[in-house]
């Protein structure tokens, strides 16, 4: 495996040594390309089909979220975070709300915490489903996409019923929740769990032992646990490399310490292990939801939070385990109604940095597979 510390930046002017001294090919992949999951541009340097090096050009979706935050009040900024990782909007909202709550030194009431956990875990499943569908599509299996989207629909229906929105939900408020769970919420979530359990097996049936799938994913885009840590890669990618680390366990937030679940890990850190880890994570999320639904307490859903929020001067860093990895918010308050500075630590952005390490020496088709397996969302990379 290439050592990330010795990787030189991509130099397009001096050619590397190529096979048979042939000319190397520089290919510009994206920003409009079916497999780059949005507007990622990758400059590939190829020897035939072998990747000698690549460089990511990002920023096509840069909207200046951090700058906007400095001109909005704490409450007004809340919906904006949904637009970063738009396939896991609920997780983004959870991270932001908890960070501001920490700054205000309030805590959401238990009932709100439970509902938060249920929605966040549902969102994790939805995010992984979208990943699975698009990842399989990139590798050439077109059918799983439709299966996952069919089942993701059920989750989105629950979101829609709960807060009116399907994708950018804005489900949580600072201090708790705005909406009480609708009538039959628990029942619908339970129904979803019984509906969904056999569906995971269905996905696995299509892919897990499929010979072509195995050949395409085993040993592709390998990265060791040490490299992962050096590159700051988190989330399922880190866990697939054998590091058993999940912020939900390591530094529990919300009320994850009340739930019993496992952290699935892989051994080889290749694309196949990352696939297995995410599949197992969906199952674990189901377990968490099951426990949470069974244990929802009665009570208020909103803590006592002033109408006009003026957190005391200070700064706070709070991070959660988003479906893609560690999602952190660094908030600096100057005592006014608007945050002085909000820094978002996006998991996709940092994970994308590993693409170069994972792809060198592999083939063009593997670049596609690795982009898929990193599970990036360009809205979050570019913010």
């Amino acid at each position, binding site marked *: 495996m290439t050592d990330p510390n010795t990787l030189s930046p991509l130099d397009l002017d001096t050619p590397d040594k190529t096979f048979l001294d042939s000319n190397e*090919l520089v*290919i*510009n992949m994206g920003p409009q*390309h*079916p*497999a780059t999951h949005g507007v990622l541009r990758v400059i590939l340097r190829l020897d035939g*089909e072998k990747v000698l090096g690549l460089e990511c050009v990002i920023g096509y979706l840069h909207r200046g979220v951090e700058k906007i935050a400095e001109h909005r009040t704490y409450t007004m900024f809340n919906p904006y975070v949904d637009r970063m990782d738009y396939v896991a909007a609920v997780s983004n909202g959870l991270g932001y709300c908890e960070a501001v709550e920490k700054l205000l030194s309030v805590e959401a009431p238990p009932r709100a915490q439970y509902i938060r956990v249920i929605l966040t875990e549902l969102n994790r499943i939805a995010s992984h489903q979208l990943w699975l569908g698009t990842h*399989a*599509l*990139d*590798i*050439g*299996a*077109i*059918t799983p*996409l*439709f*299966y996952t989207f*069919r089942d993701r629909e059920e989750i989105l229906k629950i979101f829609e019923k709960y807060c009116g929105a399907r994708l950018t939900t804005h489900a949580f408020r600072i201090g708790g929740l705005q909406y009480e769970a609708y009538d039959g919420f628990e029942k619908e979530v339970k129904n979803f769990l019984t509906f969904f359990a056999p569906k995971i097996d269905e996905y696995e049936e*299509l*892919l897990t032992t*499929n010979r*072509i*799938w195995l*050949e*395409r994913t085993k040993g592709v885009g390998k990265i060791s646990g040490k490299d992962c840590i050096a590159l700051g890669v988190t989330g399922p990618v880190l866990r697939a490399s054998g590091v058993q680390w999940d912020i939900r366990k390591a530094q529990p937030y919300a009320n994850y310490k009340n739930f019993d679940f496992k952290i699935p890990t892989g051994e080889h850190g290749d694309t196949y292990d990352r696939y297995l880890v995410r599949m197992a994570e969906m199952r674990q999320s189901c377990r968490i939801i099951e426990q949470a639904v069974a244990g929802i307490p009665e009570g208020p859903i909103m803590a006592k939070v002033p109408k006009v929020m003026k957190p005391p001067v200070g700064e706070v860093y709070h991070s959660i385990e988003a479906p893609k990895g560690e999602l952190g918010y660094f908030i600096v308050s100057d005592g006014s109604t608007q945050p002085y500075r909000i820094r978002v630590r996006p998991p996709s952005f940092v994970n994308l940095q590993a693409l170069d390490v994972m792809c060198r020496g592999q*083939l*063009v*088709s*593997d670049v*596609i597979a690795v982009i898929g397996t990193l599970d990036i969302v360009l809205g979050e990379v570019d913010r």
Partner: protein
Amino acid sequence: MHELIDYIQSYLKSNLTPGAAGNIFWATVYILLVFVGLSIAVIAMNWLERKILAHMQVRLGPMRVGPHGLLQPIADAIKLLLKEDIIPAEADKFVFWIAPFIVVLAAFTVFVVVPFGPTHAITDMNIGILFMLGVSSLSVLGIVTAGWASNSHYPLIGALRSSAQMVSYEVAMGLAVVSVIMMTSLQTGTGTLSMIGIVQAQQTSGEWFIFKFFPLGLIGFFIFAIAMVAETNRAPFDLPEAESELTAGFHTEYSGFRWSLFFLAEYSAMIAVSSIAVTLWLGGWLRPFPNLLHGSTWDLVFSLVPGLTFLFFAAICFFNVVRMPKHPLFKIQTMGLAGFGAVLGLIGLVMFVPGVRDRVGDIFWFAAKVAGFMYLYIWYRGTFPRYRFDQLMKMGWKVLLPMGLALLILTAVVAMRADLWDQLRGVGHP
């Protein structure tokens, strides 16, 4: 005038294909028939692929244009013809222009020797199978020129992949074909390369070559069946046009009518290689179970099947007419579907007429077998992920080629002592 009619009629009494009989009139008629039939088949295949794939993927597929989207391919064709035809500024204009024609030409010329029945072929060449393999491999030329002339990276890589892939799978394909040709030499001692001759050899030997020297025929068939998917660049070997990697591969820069030519060529190539497989292993136009269910009664029963099939499709149409929503908006659709069903039913009834029945039976069985292959193509596409290029080459050279060679040698050895082989299996040598 009288001579002309004589000239036309004289062929009908002969037992030859128009090409072999040297009858130019009937050859022209057959060429037109094959061309029109193939175009209809491609259009139907387009609709069927979208529908079947959609149903495999829990969605409906085209539903808007005509009842159940039946007119969708026609709407697509009109769209493609009306589309702006773009030639990139940096492209080599002449080569860019000629590439799709080479591909289409290669795909269509193959059908000159495809035998739809003992007399239903444009011509019968004594080197039929060689001609077929040779011409169908010409299409790689068109693909390479298309990729090169586009003067763009993705088409170039697609073209390179395509040429490497087609050339390497042709080797395995050829070996499998040679093993069949050996099997044809059993009765006559000389063997034949003629497509019609190969089917007749299966008829006289009493079993399709897929069951010959079990499992040798079967292995040869599987080698061919895998190689032919790679040869036509279809999933899971669709690397030259891997959508998620190379956007559209060699035809990325093509649009409108030129693109539709590639599309036409791809589907007719699929039909062409399927017809080779059917001719070589599945008994061509022969009806199923020729050795088990024989006698005039069974002949009659099997000759009724074509008409019954069409009646069955007509019944499906009428069933759906009844199920159509009773709403003024659906009136035209309902009527259209009923009309379509009526046409199918009429064709089915015509097929019961004894004269037609005898002439159409061969073509029907041939088409049905090819249709089975077409369904397999769609099924593969719905099920498998895509191979990577090195894995594809590994499979071609390290698995299929040695298997093909071993098969060739084994077949030769067994064919030399075919009498012993049959004794071993307890079958008397004919």
